[in-house]
Each structure stands twice: as C-alpha cells, then as structure tokens.
C-alpha cells in the first residue's frame, strides 16, 4: 500500500536515545542532512585491550523513567563511565514560583513529584506556615499524616513495580501495584477531586474536610493493603532471579551516602538512621508508634526491602491515625485564602517525602510573591552518586540501580 522508503534520508539514523539531546556538538542542523558517518563504534584506547562502546541511554529510553539520559561508556557490558544528563523536564518551577502568588504555587508543587503530590503540598505549606506562624488545627494535622502515609504507600508500591519492570518482568508486578494504587487514588479523588494533582493543602489547614464515609473506606483500603503486601512479597521477595539481580548490586557505602546528601529510603538502606519524621518531628508524628527500618548492605535489594518494610510501618501509622482522628475545624482561623504577604525574611522548611528530604527555601520581600522560590529535590541529589554505584557493574545493573534510586523527573529537573 505504501511504497517502501528505500533510504531513510533522515537527519539521523539511530533509533531513539542515541541521538543528540544535549546539543553538545551533535545537534542536527535544521534542514541540513547530518553526516551519515557511522558513529556506531567509537574506538577509545584502553589498557584492557577491548573496545569501548559509547551509548547514550535516553532521553527516550524505556528504563529511564521518563526523560533522563545516561551517557554510558561500556567495555563489553561493563560500565566504565556514566554521565547523567538532566534538564529534559526542566519546567522552570522556581521561576514560575517567583512570579506567582503564594497560593498559586500550591498547584505547581503537585507537579513536582507527580506520584507524591500530597507530600509536596505538605512540604510547601509547612514551609509557608513556618514563615507566617500559622498553625493547622489538630484534625488537619491528622489528615495530613494520613494522606502523607497513603502517598508513601503509593510511591513505594509503584517504585517496586517499576524496579521489577526494569529487571524485565513483563509488567505484572507493576500492574498489581497500580491495581492497589487505584484504590488509594480513589480515596484521594473523593477527598480532593483530582486523581493526581490534588492541590489539597492550604496554609494553616486544608482545602476541604473529609467527605462522609471516607474514614471507613480508608480503613478498608489500609486493611487490604497489608494483605496485598503479603502477596506482593510472595511474588517478589523470594524470587531467585530478583535476588540474583539485586543483591550485591549498586552498593552504596554509609560515608559516601552521607557526604552525597542522599536521603530517604536510599540513605536508610545504607544503614544511616535519619528520618525527618523522627528527627524534626514535624506535624504530629511524635504521637504515633512506628519504627525506622535500616539496611545493612546498601545494595539494590536492601533498597527494595527497606521500602517494603517502610510500607508496613506506614500501614501501622495509618491504623493509628485513622483510629485517633478527632473532630474539629480544619483551618487556622487566622489563615486567609488570598493576598498572603509575609514580612521580609527567609525560611527553609523540609519534610520526609517518600523519596527523601523535600525542602523549600523561600526568601520573601514583603510582596505577594516570593523573592526566591527554591525547591530542594530529593531525587536529584540522590542521583549524585549514580555513577559511583554503577561503575564496574553491567549495563543491565545500571538500569536497575537507577530504578532503585527512585527518581521522578518532574522533581529532578523541576
């Protein structure tokens, strides 16, 4: 039906990912035919006698969880150099935050780490509350803890799904993860009206109260969740292939993790006890009984397992919070919706998002919009040591190491 295109007279020939993205010298010119020189193999002199292969994985690559690129140099299948390239999803959150009002920045925080919108909301309103001295009432604090822990469940389940997907399981664990995610998303939707971009928290409180019957539904979901976790672990935790792929792979040492500012489950998998829920005791986390699981080896399997154990702890917190939640108002009476003008100064606020420390740094100058709006993304900083973890591993390992770091590009590039 269609005449075959004999020669693909294109500006490039390689498929996806090995094209230029960074524009550093290999950007194609508009309308001009790029040199058809085979850039298949770039020979580099190395002492080992083998030939090195330069591969650009990404920005369109199935394993990079979005638009991330790793410039990898391979010796056979072994990674000898890895250069992360960012910015393919740089959406100028900080610039937009500096031109918009304090209220208008809340929906933008939803879109930072778009799997954990609730905790992003919380981090931002937490920072502004620190700045303005607004104090959310008790019920609001409880609801915040509940939605944050539900978010943790969503994030960790999906992460494990993506991680096992990266190992090559045909999406089955991911499907199960999303099956359970949908239940929590339903909760969030009936609470805030949207499936992903909740825009739920407000300075000194919340946008709206729980709808009737929500607590019961949430209790049901949480009760099912530990059952689901058992199933999930039966599917994965003992799987020999998963063990072989993940144990001893991508080891991150304690000292390096601290120096590199790694936070969240990844840090705790390396054995560092640092969880802002315990350290800062923000919100009302001091009221709940829960423990911080710590890994020992700091490899991919520990990172997987820490997340499973954290989910089990999150279920515990949820059980307590859902049982204890009091009645009452959900907003600080001092809070007003529009026209927030904090007095000049600066503040840094942070919370433990599922991926690590999510901080906001605001400088105010008395105008209705912040002078400086800075987001401290856990995903980006956790990637600092990506190369250190991947060197000497095979390319397939690099993929799952990246998966185990748990990045969301919206947050990495902002």
């Amino acid at each position, binding site marked *: 039906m269609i005449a075959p295109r004999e020669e693909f007279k*294109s500006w490039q020939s390689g498929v996806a990912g090995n094209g230029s993205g960074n524009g550093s010298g290999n950007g194609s010119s*508009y309308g001009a035919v790029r040199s058809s020189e085979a850039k298949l193999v770039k020979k580099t002199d190395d002492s080992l006698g083998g030939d090195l292969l330069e591969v650009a994985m990404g920005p369109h690559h199935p394993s990079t969880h*979005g638009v991330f690129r790793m410039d990898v140099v391979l010796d056979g299948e072994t990674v000898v150099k890895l250069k992360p390239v960012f910015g393919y999803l740089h*959406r100028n959150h900080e610039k937009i935050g500096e031109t918009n009002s304090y209220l208008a920045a809340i929906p933008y925080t939803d879109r930072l780490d778009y799997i954990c919108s609730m905790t992003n909301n919380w981090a931002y309103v937490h920072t502004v509350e620190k700045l303005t001295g607004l104090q959310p009432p008790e019920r609001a604090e409880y609801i915040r803890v509940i939605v944050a822990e539900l978010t943790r469940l969503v994030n960790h389940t999906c992460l494990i799904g993506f991680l096992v997907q990266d190992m090559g399981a045909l999406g089955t664990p991911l499907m199960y993860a*999303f099956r359970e995610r949908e239940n929590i998303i339903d909760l969030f939707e009936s609470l805030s009206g949207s499936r992903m971009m909740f825009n739920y928290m407000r300075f000194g409180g919340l946008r709206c109260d729980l709808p009737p019957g929500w607590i019961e539904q949430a209790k049901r979901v949480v009760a099912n969740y530990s059952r689901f976790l058992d199933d999930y672990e039966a599917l994965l935790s003992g799987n020999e292939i998963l063990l072989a792929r993940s144990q001893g792979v991508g080891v991150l040492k304690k000292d390096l993790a601290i120096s590199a500012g790694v936070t969240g489950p990844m840090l705790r998998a390396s054995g560092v006890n640092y969880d802002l829920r315990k350290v800062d005791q923000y919100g009302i986390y001091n009221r709940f009984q829960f423990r911080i699981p710590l890994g020992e080896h700091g490899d991919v399997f520990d990172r997987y397992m820490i997340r499973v154990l954290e989910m089990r702890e999150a279920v515990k917190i949820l059980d307590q919070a859902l049982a204890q939640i009091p009645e009452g108002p959900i907003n600080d009476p001092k809070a007003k919706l529009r026209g927030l003008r904090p007095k000049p100064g600066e503040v840094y606020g942070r919370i433990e998002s599922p991926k690590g420390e999510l901080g906001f740094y605001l400088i105010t100058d008395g105008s209705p919009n912040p002078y400086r709006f800075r987001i401290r993304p856990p995903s980006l900083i956790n990637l600092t040591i990506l190369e250190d973890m991947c060197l000497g591993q095979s390319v397939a390992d690099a993929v799952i190491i990246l998966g185990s770091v748990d990045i969301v590009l919206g947050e990495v590039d902002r």
Partner: protein
Amino acid sequence: MEITPSENNSVMDEALRSELSKQGVFTTSLQELYNWGRKNSLWPLQFGLACCAIEMIAASMARFDISRFGAEVFRPSPRQADLMIVAGTVTKKMAPQVVRLYNQMPEPKYVIAMGACAISGGPFKQGYNVLKGIDRFLPVDVHIPGCPPRPEALLDALMALQKKIEQQSLTGVTRPRHLTEDARSEFPIPEFGEHDLVPSKNPELWFPPTPMKKP
C-alpha cells in the same frame, strides 16, 4: 475503479453503497479493511514525558486496560510504533528528540497530544524552557485537554482517533496525511540556539489564528 472523492465519502448511505458495489466494491472493501486494520492496531510508542505519562501508564493498567482496544503493545522502539502519545510537558531541551522520534516512526503514524502541557505548554507556558505546544513541530491528530487527563479521557481520545481513521479513504480529499502526494513523514528538527530553539516553530505546520484584542 476510479472513484471520485465525493462518492468515496466513507459516510455513505446504503443506497449509494449498493450502487457503488456494481463498479467499485473492491476498492471500497479494501479501503475498509485497511482502515479497520489500522484503527484496531494502534501500537503506541513507549514514551512518557511527565505527569501525564503516569496517567498513560494507568490507562494501560488493570483498571482502565487500554489493551481492550489492542493498544497495549507499547513498543520501546519508534520503528514499530504507530502512535505517539505525547504525554506531558515538552521542554525545549526535549523537543528535538521528540521530533526525531516522530521522524523515526514509519508511516502511517499518528500523534496524540495528551494534556495541557503537550497542547500548549499548559500551566508551564510561562517557563523559559517549555515548548508551547508540540503542534509547533508535529502534526497532531487528537488533543486531550486536562492536567492530567483522566485515563478514560485517553481512551476516549483513542476512540476519537479510531473514528478519524475509519472515516479516511484511500483517495480523494479524505485520504490520510501519509497518502497525499507531497506527504512529509519527516519534519525538520529544531536546533539548540543560544537563547531559544532555532527556529522556535515550524512555519509550514503552525498556523495560529490572530489573537483577539483586549479592549
């Protein structure tokens, strides 16, 4: 076998169809078969950009199950994909890559712009690194507004695309883009400039209307 465009309108009534069957039944049925095959086997490119990608994944998961339409075969290689779902914000740094991926797809190929960002830059259109709509560089078949659109909205768009394919003919004015004589299956890839993409739009594709005037 010659069928004039007016006759070859796919929304033809039964009487016309029976009349045609005397002379051109073969062409008509071939066309139907071709459209039927194309519309029921839309393999998307496994290609997520931002937030909407999560809803795209959700659409392929158990609750919404895009596979019912035969479209769950997310191909990681553009050579085997038919449908590019631009799911999320296209940044200027990413735009050349998106165009390149489109160029690498074989004809017939379709583009769905999913979400406000892909259509117009959406909430991020004020940003300096955000492309204000993928249709500046690529011909988009279906736009789905929303931020992000629900997975059902993606399914709805898929059905809209299927309907669009169904109404195309092999010849005449309703023929698809790739069967026109001067069809381009590749579009120029913008280059990174010192301040912006060069050029910032493809003038052959992008015909915005004049903006209204604020009194």
